[in-house]
């Protein structure tokens, strides 16, 4: 290593002689930081998405690599948000990668004091059995005047404001066919 290279390797020299007098850019760069790439550059792909919090509908770009989300940023193309995200939207990678997220079905038996694990398939079967039974037990065919009621007031549901339109459509369609009326969401609250 020559003296010149050695001196130029010293950040303060570059700061004093180069075009970065405040030492906040190229002057402060080390070989390691020079080689660093943003996670966004290394991503396998980027999905055009929308922030899941409030109803403003800010555009998000979701970067992913090896099947994992690596970064979520505001979408500068969006005419709504112009690339900006609030503290919640900016934290949404934390939402999807949080270690607190539950990945497995949990089951609490009647009168139990703890959770236990349950197979997803088995849980789906048990829920289907309970819906069919509750519906049969609480079915109301007709009112006292003989007019159709075709319903159950034994099964209720709450939620939908954080879900997709397609999901709400299937929820409403299935519950309506089952005769379940007490289907509600945050819009009532």
């Amino acid at each position, binding site marked *: 290593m020559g003296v010149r290279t050695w001196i130029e390797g010293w950040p303060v020299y570059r700061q004093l002689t180069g075009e970065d007098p405040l030492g906040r850019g190229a002057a402060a760069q080390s070989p390691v930081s020079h080689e660093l790439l943003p996670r966004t550059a290394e991503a396998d792909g*980027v*999905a*055009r*998405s929308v922030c*899941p*919090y409030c*109803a*403003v*509908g800010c555009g998000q770009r979701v970067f992913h690599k090896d099947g994992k*989300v690596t970064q*979520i940023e505001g979408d500068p*193309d969006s005419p*709504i948000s112009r690339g900006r995200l609030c*503290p*919640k939207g900016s934290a949404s990678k*934390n939402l*999807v990668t*949080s270690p*607190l997220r*539950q*990945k*497995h079905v949990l*089951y*609490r038996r009647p009168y139990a*004091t703890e*959770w236990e694990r349950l197979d997803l398939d088995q849980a789906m079967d048990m*829920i*289907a*059995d*309970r819906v*069919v039974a*509750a519906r049969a037990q609480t079915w109301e065919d007709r009112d006292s005047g003989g007019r*159709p*009621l*075709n319903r159950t*007031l*034994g*099964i*209720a549901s*709450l*939620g*939908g*404001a*954080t*879900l*997709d*339109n*397609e999901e*709400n*459509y299937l929820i409403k369609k299935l519950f*309506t*066919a089952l*005769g379940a*009326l*007490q289907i509600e*969401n*945050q*819009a*009532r*609250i």
Partner: protein
Amino acid sequence: MGSNMAEAHPVGFQWVMEAKSRGAKVVHIDPRFTRTSALADTYVPLRAGTDIAFLGGVINYVLQNELDFREYVTAYTNAATILSDDYVDAEDLDGLFSGFDEEGRQYDPSSWQYAGHEESGRSQDMHSQRETASPMQHESHGGSTYAHPRRDLTLQDPRCVYQVLKRHYARYTPEMVERVCGVPQDTFRQVCETWAAASGRERTAMLVYSVGWTQHSVGVQYIRAGAVLQLLLGNVGRPGGGVMALRGHASIQGSTDIPTLFNLLPGYLPMPHHSQHETLQQWVDAIRHPGQEGFWADAGAYGVSLLKAYWGDAATAENDYCFDRLPRLTGDHGTYRTVLDMIDGKVKGYFLLGQNPAVGSAHGTAQRLGMANLDWLVVRDLFLIESATFWKDGPEVATGEIVPEECRTEVFFLPAASHVEKEGTFTQTQRLLQWREKAVEPEADCRSELWFFYHLGVRIRDRLASSTEARDRAVLDLTWDYPTHGELDEPSAEAVLREINGYRVADGKPLSSYTELAGDGSTVCGCWIYCGVYADGVNQAARRKSRHEQDEVAGEWGWAWPANRRILYNRASADPEGRPWSERKKYVWWDAEKGEWTGADVPDFERTKPPSYVPPEGSSGVEAISGEDPFIMQGDGKGWLFASVGLVDGPLPTHYEPAESPFRNALYGQQANPARKVYDRADNVTNPSPPEEHSDVFPIVLTTSRLTEHHTAGGMSRTLDYLAELQPAMFMEVSPELAAERGLEHLGWAHVVTARSAVEARVLVTDRLAPLRVDGRVLHQVWMPYHWGQGGLTTGDSANDLIGITLDPNVLIQESKVATCDVRPGRRPTGPELVAYVEGYRRRAGVGGRPLPVVTATPSEED
């Protein structure tokens, strides 16, 4: 008003700041000085729950000084329409309108009708309208009345709406506003002048509200008052105008359009009522109101196309398209009624889908006791929210009201897929649908709701496959054949969106507009107002043309219902002759040469109907819309200053005190909304208000709202490191004066008490909450965020535990933005002592007197 936009919708607020930088005046009216107030030109504190008194004062100022945009008001609103001679205003009945039935606490609205149409009011059953929140149908816009009512274009007839309005608000003077709201007269006059100046051909004003308006026992009338004022100033249907509802969840607009709501079917079609909608024809006629003008006249096509989407080939003209199979309403089946029914042991199973009522709904104790009395509960969420763990660590476990070993509720927790692990559309607050691409597959047992409900449906149908029960035909004939893909058998969200959009039965060709829908079974459409989102077989909601490559309307980004229209009723952006009101406010206008409406947006009018069009005598429906009627979903084509139908608590907004108030109503003998929905039970007591005794037990006003760093009930924020660190603790804001009076220490502990519970928090002593002088005395208000619960990375008491269940009668939404309370220094008692402590308050206040029911958890007979 009723919105802390900078805090709750921060990225949307950039546009307010953009407008401010171009000269717009920003006025913020709110009980508390907030992040929004800090950026406004003018901040006005007012007493929580008095917004109608304030708005009525502004309306009075506009009318007394004749500052309304007269040309707009005469042509586009019902100001000139003559009312029935039978109508008696609240001014003459001490706060009640004509037609009130004391016993049923409900109105007969026949006297509220337009002159000559009194009969149309008689067909309205207000009891069932309140029970079924039927005014919600009007969210897709438009109330019914008859076309071509009698009008006086000079606005001088004493029975015309303009004159009635003027008399109704005559006593809402600056002096009265000061007395009721605690707003000094000078400040109030300044707001009046600013607002009234933003009107006319060259100027507009925009009104923004959020649930600070909605969540009141008079919530719908708050919004009506805002709309009346905006119509008087000509600020509806024009760029830079409008009444903007800022909604709080990514797709809460979508979940109202494609409703997971008890009283609605997709596109605001009503869920049929057992006695009023016995047949398909009765149901259709109830929606389209034969004889009225506007696009609801085609309700039959919208309804039949939905039934075809549900039941496919099984839905035929001979069987009324399976109309019989729809479940029937008999009354109130809303979420609060249902929770009280859970406490009473009437409900067996409950699904929670990304919702946390143990923290987010009013009266947390009732929510948790209800869940503790179910047979089974299914919770689908990203995290273990309080509603999933109430049986283990809920506040009632501490007090002994829920004993885990005695609580029978079987709980299934199924992990959900996040917004990046599935594809589909959200509808944001301005009706814009945006498609999200999937980034990654969900891990382990995590699944989308689409997956869960599709596969649940498949399993239920398997179980019923050999059934001969008539009731099971509705399930077995349901069209449920969505294609699936991938290792998880995920149903195709695009296939569902295509069904929502609609297509022709004959060849499967997607429809491009709701005007193509037919009532003869030849079209399928899952939600008529969304028809066009899949026009030409293209997912229009997935469009992402950069804002840099199109104009500011950005019509090629996503898709807005209806018909990709960005400003509703934009015919009103042109004058009656079809010319822009001004060059500055040019938006949509009539191009006489081409013979069509044109402009920056999709015109909200029949494209080739000229401004000069006069409907033929005796016409109805679309044909009856005249060339100068911009409000094409209204039965008379006009913006309604006076609402003769659609509201169960009066045709004009009127100041009532909140259900819990420390003050007597200064304007009328009638204290609170006479038609409000109450559930008078030992487990849902209300703090007393004057003229009842003992209202001094709860002398302070409580209001709650959001923080930027947290989200609603906290399930998506208290679980995140960054957000939990940014707002690490539950707290309350109090004024220095209240702190001195009650001995509260900054950063120390204090607790708030109501007849429902006591909630503790750290104290933030701040000038942001100034005491107000109301009706001659000092009033203190306290504020709390409502995001906390016992789970997550930052824990604390839930503010909603303090709130009781009293609802707006039009939409059955709870009054949670205002209550009365007491504030005490130090932490609240714990364990069973908490129950005894609150009971002591109830006894002193003379309410209830019985403790909440303890869940005994005896298995139900069927088990």
